C-alpha cells in the first residue's frame, strides 16, 4: 500500500470507529542491527532437543513500507484524528518443521531473504537426527490509538 493509501485507510478507520474508539496498529518492527547495519526482520534459531541454537537472521530488503506506515500514523496524529496512547514491542515466535517450510514463508514476504552462510548453518542443524525444526523470532510493534 502506498503512503497515500495508508493515510486514506486511517481516515476510513476513523470514520467507522465509535467516538473514543480504539485502534491497534500491529506490524513487524524491522530494525538495523550490528556493525554491518543489516536490516533485520527476524532472528533464527535451530531447535535441537530443548535448546534454541542461534544461527543468524532473516534480512529485510526494504524499509519503505514501514517508513510509509510510520509517516501515515504521524500524519493522522498531526491532523487530530487520533491520540497515541502507547507504543510497545514484543517477540512473535514462528516455528517451521523444515527449511522448505521456512522458504515457503519467505515466498510470502517478498523483501525478506536468507543469506547463504545462515542457510548453510540451518541445513547443517537440520541434518542432525534430533532437530525439531526452526524458530524465527520477529519483533512486533503495537501502537494503540484512540479516536478523537
Amino acid at each position, binding site marked *: *500500500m502506498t503512503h497515500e*493509501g*495508508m493515510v*486514506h*485507510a*486511517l481516515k*476510513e*478507520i476513523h*470514520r*467507522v*470507529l*465509535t*467516538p473514543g*474508539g*480504539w*485502534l*491497534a*496498529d*500491529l*506490524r*513487524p518492527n524491522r530494525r538495523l542491527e550490528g556493525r554491518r547495519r543489516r536490516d533485520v526482520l527476524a532472528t533464527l534459531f535451530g531447535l535441537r532437543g530443548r535448546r534454541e541454537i542461534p544461527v543468524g537472521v532473516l534480512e529485510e530488503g526494504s524499509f519503505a513500507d514501514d517508513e510509509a*506506515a510510520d509517516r*501515515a*500514523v504521524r500524519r493522522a496524529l498531526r491532523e487530530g484524528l487520533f491520540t497515541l*496512547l*502507547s507504543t*510497545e514491542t*514484543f*517477540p*512473535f*515466535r*514462528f*516455528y*517451521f*518443521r*523444515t527449511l522448505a*517450510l521456512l522458504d*515457503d*514463508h519467505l515466498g510470502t514476504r517478498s523483501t525478506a531473504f536468507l543469506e547463504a552462510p545462515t542457510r548453510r548453518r540451518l541445513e547443517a542443524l537440520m541434518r542432525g537426527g534430533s532437530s525439531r*525444526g526452526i524458530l524465527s523470532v520477529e519483533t*512486533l510493534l*503495537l501502537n*494503540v490509538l484512540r479516536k478523537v
Partner: protein
Amino acid sequence: MRGTRKDPERTEIRVLLRRLPLAGAGVLEIGCGEGRLTRRIAGVARSVVGIDPDAAAIATARRLLPRRLAGRVRFDVGTGQRLPFGGGAFPVVICSWSL
C-alpha cells in the same frame, strides 16, 4: 500450513488484551489473512469482522472457523481503504500487519 506454528505461546493476543477493551466488544480486524488472530479475538469479543484483500485467505479463514464461533465471526474480502461499514460501527479496529 502443516508443519508451521505461528505464535503458539499466544503472545500477540495477550498483549492486545492488556492494551485494548476487547472483552464484549465489536471488533473489526483489517488484514485478517487466514483468521489466526481473528479466532483468538473471537474468544473474548462479542463479535469480530475480519477483512483481507486475499480472497483465497478469506476462503481458508471461513473453512477454519470452528462452528462454536460461527455466529460471532464474519470474514469478507476487502481493504482498509474502502470499508463497507457505516460510521461509528466498531468500538475497536485492529490493523493486523496491514498498514
